[in-house]
């Protein structure tokens, strides 16, 4: 089986020009900001977190009274 090299070494990410770097530094435009995809992903995560957390409190509440 052939050996290989990871694409990050064979075909590395194109270096950014100074203009591109400056553009990245500019803080947010648009509704979801400069990282809309990430924003959606973290909000999905947040929803899952809230749901799992409170479901567990509900499960706990079915137990005997303990104190």
């Amino acid at each position: 089986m052939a050996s290989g090299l990871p694409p990050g070494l064979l075909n590395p990410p194109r270096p950014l020009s100074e203009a591109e770097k400056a553009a990245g530094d500019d803080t947010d435009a648009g509704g979801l900001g400069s990282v809309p995809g990430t924003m959606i992903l973290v909000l999905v995560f947040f929803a899952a977190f809230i749901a799992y957390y409170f479901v567990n409190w509900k499960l706990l509440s079915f137990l005997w009274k303990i104190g």
Partner: protein
Amino acid sequence: MTTAAAKFRVCPTTKLRVHAQADALIKANAVVATVALLIGGLAAILVLLTRWQAVHLLGAEMFYRVLTIHGMNMLIFFILFFEMAVLYFAGPVLLNSRVPAPKIAWTGFVLMVLGTLMVEWTMFTGRADVLFTSYVPLRAHPLFYLGVILFAVGAVLAVCIFFASLVVARRERTYEGSVPLVTFGALTAAIIAAITLVHGAAIYIPTFLWSLDLMPMDAQVYRLVWWGLGHSSQQINVAAMVSVWYLLGALTVGAVVLNEKVSRIAFVLYVLFISMASAHHLLVDPGMGPAWKVWNTSYFMYMAVLASMIHGFTVPGGIEIGMRLRGYTKGLFEWLRRAPWGDPGFSSLIFSIVVFGFVGGITGVTFGTEQINIIAHNTLRIPGHFHATVVSGTAMAFMGVTYYVIPLIFRKKVAFWPLARIQPYLFAGGMLIFSITMTFAGTFGVPRRHWDITFSGAPFTLEFSPAVDLVMGMMALGGLMAALGGGIYILVTVWSVFFGEKMEGGDDGERAAPRAPESASAAV
């Protein structure tokens, strides 16, 4: 000043000046880490095939022995040797600098290996059937505790060398500006390691003396201090994993740092709040009261969780901007859809973030709540949680970065490349199934660290719902899939390192060349 004999090579890819000792120390630690992973992995398969009642492979005595071997090899030997390699990379290599006092560095390595061998001997000969936590009054042979102490002393030496290398690099001006974020993250991991190892000394030295009948040991105090070591060691793993996330992001897609201030503060939060957070292992213990429990889990929740949630945004965000700046701007997710999913470094990175966050993080914070812990403690929910964090999270990230370490440090091509490309999918997919099913079984009350859930020989009968058998069977299959992924990783790395094709394009070696301040340019 460098000695006349200091030997460096210039990496053709990154243009970093790599000290020969750094190369050697990274290799040595990575190789030993892989051996430990192999032992721990074989043990994992045996444990899994026993907890799968349909197979129930090992007898009771061997089960607990092999479970101890699994825990110690994975959570101590594999992960810490690998982290030493990460430190030598993040310090001397990333900063173009030398390893100061190589003799001490090697002494540290040798002590770690000696300690490991001592502990392995006690475990394999049945003198330490006490599980990873070795809760007193369960008693192991004194050499078990002494081995851990030696290992810890060696690790302390390596951590000190890392700190020294940062000082030396700064003093000798081998880089300009502040240390890179990856190095900063490794620094916080090293600080937590130092704190962890102090806790380790505080518990293993008295316990070693107790095992020789030289002093008493209170069972609750042991648990309290041990978890000061036990949890903090997991925070080392988190900090190291997050550093590797930034490293892999940079290497695979040119991910940018959204904001240095935010990421660095998030790393510092890890340092400040780990030790007392260990309280979440003791939430249903009799020795401490609710005020202590609530205070310590909250200020853990305030800060260490906040830090992880921050990195959970900045790492993907950095990938997104890195890709958007390079033209992937269509819609919301082109930056992710058209990312290099065939690069095992990239796929490992994404799986590590997703499974660590969604499964590991959410379950961990939930179970670490004082009252919810009542329905989680010592059930399979707990190992379900930590296999999602330290295995699907940290170990997955470490596996991903190995595919870059092999060419960059070992100067070899990655063997069995098609297998390497699918390895993260197998491992992460298997581990995802494994963790989720295990957590689910735990909600039925299935105990952890338990040889036989049919309870044969018990005075009262207990039968779990048939759903449990189904879930445990699925858990076993997920685990076997992950073990296959782990096995491929070991095959690929060992073959590459020892029998692999050498890289062309020589290293431009240098001997004691006068050094002008050079910046470490991005890996491209």
